[in-house]
């Protein structure tokens, strides 16, 4: 009796182990499959982007929704980013008696790193989830199939316009966010000090260089591209009914945000190689 129960226990634990191993294998295989499909999806984008017809009106509409509609959110984030970074950096610099370096230090950290990354994260949260959910619900309700039947290329109309507008709008949003963050930093400096507007900006531009601005701007194009591409891929390939809509939106944001950090790390490595 005892030996029987032991055998059953062993059988159950072996089965559980096999199940968990299988699920790990499945998710690992799924991960690599996803990478392959995403690469194919991106290649299809580059194949089709230059082919007519061009959906210019849809591109403008998406740019308005993705770019202009994100402006208030990005502006508020940018302002708080500049203000908080200045307030937090002051005590450390004050210890060395180097408070006059505050504008330059905040400017370099915002322009080089914090501005592009934080704006891209906010962008991934707002736009990535939106695109993921929208395309997934279109897929689930078979609107994408209907488009194909009616002779419209859904990839061109839905994916290319969104990816292009996201790639073009994120750099603009970053420029606006950086500018507003500098204004926030100016207010932050003046909370406990007395620095004129002109002196603040002359100190900011004194320390900024083209090597700070251009790599930071170039990487934002890649951020915008990857966010929209991942979101479109997740939405376009959603096939689990209504449950899949939520999952697509969620994974679009998570993978999109992760891709920002990975791209940022690569960008920093490349920049440090050349500059």
């Amino acid at each position, binding site marked *: 009796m005892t030996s029987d129960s032991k055998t059953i226990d062993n059988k159950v634990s072996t089965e559980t182990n096999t199940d968990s191993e299988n699920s790990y294998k499945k998710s690992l295989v799924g991960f690599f499959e996803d990478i392959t499909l995403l690469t194919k999806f991106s290649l299809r984008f580059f194949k089709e982007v230059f082919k007519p017809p061009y959906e210019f009106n849809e591109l403008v509409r998406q*740019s308005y929704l993705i*770019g202009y509609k994100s402006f208030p959110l990005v502006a508020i984030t940018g302002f708080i980013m500049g203000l908080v970074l200045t307030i937090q950096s002051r005590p450390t610099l004050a210890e060395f008696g180097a408070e006059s370096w505050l504008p330059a230090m905040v400017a370099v950290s915002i322009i080089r790193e914090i501005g592009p990354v934080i704006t891209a994260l906010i962008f991934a949260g707002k736009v990535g989830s939106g695109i993921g959910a929208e395309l997934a619900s279109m897929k689930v309700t078979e609107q994408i199939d209907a488009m194909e039947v009616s002779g419209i290329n859904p990839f061109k109309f839905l994916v290319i316009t969104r990816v292009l507008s996201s790639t073009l709008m994120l750099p*603009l949003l970053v420029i606006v966010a950086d500018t507003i963050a500098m204004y926030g930093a100016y207010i932050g400096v003046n909370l406990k000090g007395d620095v004129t507007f002109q002196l603040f900006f002359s100190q900011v*531009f004194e320390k900024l*260089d083209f090597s700070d*601005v251009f790599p930071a701007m170039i990487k934002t194009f890649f951020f915008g591209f990857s966010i929209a591409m991942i979101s479109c891929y997740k939405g376009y390939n959603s096939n689990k009914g209504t449950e899949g809509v939520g999952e697509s939106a969620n994974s679009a944001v998570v993978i999109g945000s992760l891709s920002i950090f990975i791209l940022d790390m690569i960008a920093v490595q490349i920049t440090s190689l050349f500059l």
Partner: protein
Amino acid sequence: MKKTSGNKIRLGIFVSAGIVLFIVGIYFIGERQQMFSKTFNISGIFKDISGLQIGNNVRFSGINVGVISDIQQVTDSTVKVDMLIDEDSRKFIKKNAKAIIGSDGLMGNKLVIITPGEPGKPMLADNDCIATAQPVSMDEILMKIKVTSTNAAEITGDLSSIIKNIRDGKGTIGKLFMDSVFADNIDKTLVNIKQGAGGFKQNMNAASHNFLLRGFFKKKKKDKDKEKDEKNKN
């Protein structure tokens, strides 16, 4: 339809504002690097540039007038530094001006400081080579500090042996401070001097009443009174 065109206008404004902000930023950064202003080129030959880099500032009379545009090693002990200088400053920089490598504050970036030449001399021409002076490097300062501190250590050693001698009552100063017999002698000497001074005063009093010297003392008294009257009048 109206809504669509309104959206397009808003998007257009947003895109234009973003591009304008970017161009303004680029302009200000470029202006600092003398990209959009008229400039002329000069160069200087240095033995050691102490970590100067391309893009560092060139300062004249405390004003940033240019940037370092190129740095080239010419021989094993000479480095050629090219500088782009603002055209507006050309009239102030004379042929015999000198360039020195300094730094912006204690921890700041390296920069080239141009000292003004003598007035009346001709202005620098394009691609001129400016005279240079070797800066005092941090290593040299540290070497000097090392010599000074060695000297200071020797001096304090000497001082401590002198103080030890004084404590032991050796030498004149040691005796003065530490020897009680010596102090008694000085005390007695002072008493003797005091007595001697009293006797001398008596002798002088007697001399002033002597008929041979009375005239001299009277004359002296008159001169003194006269001087006093003049002082009162003034």
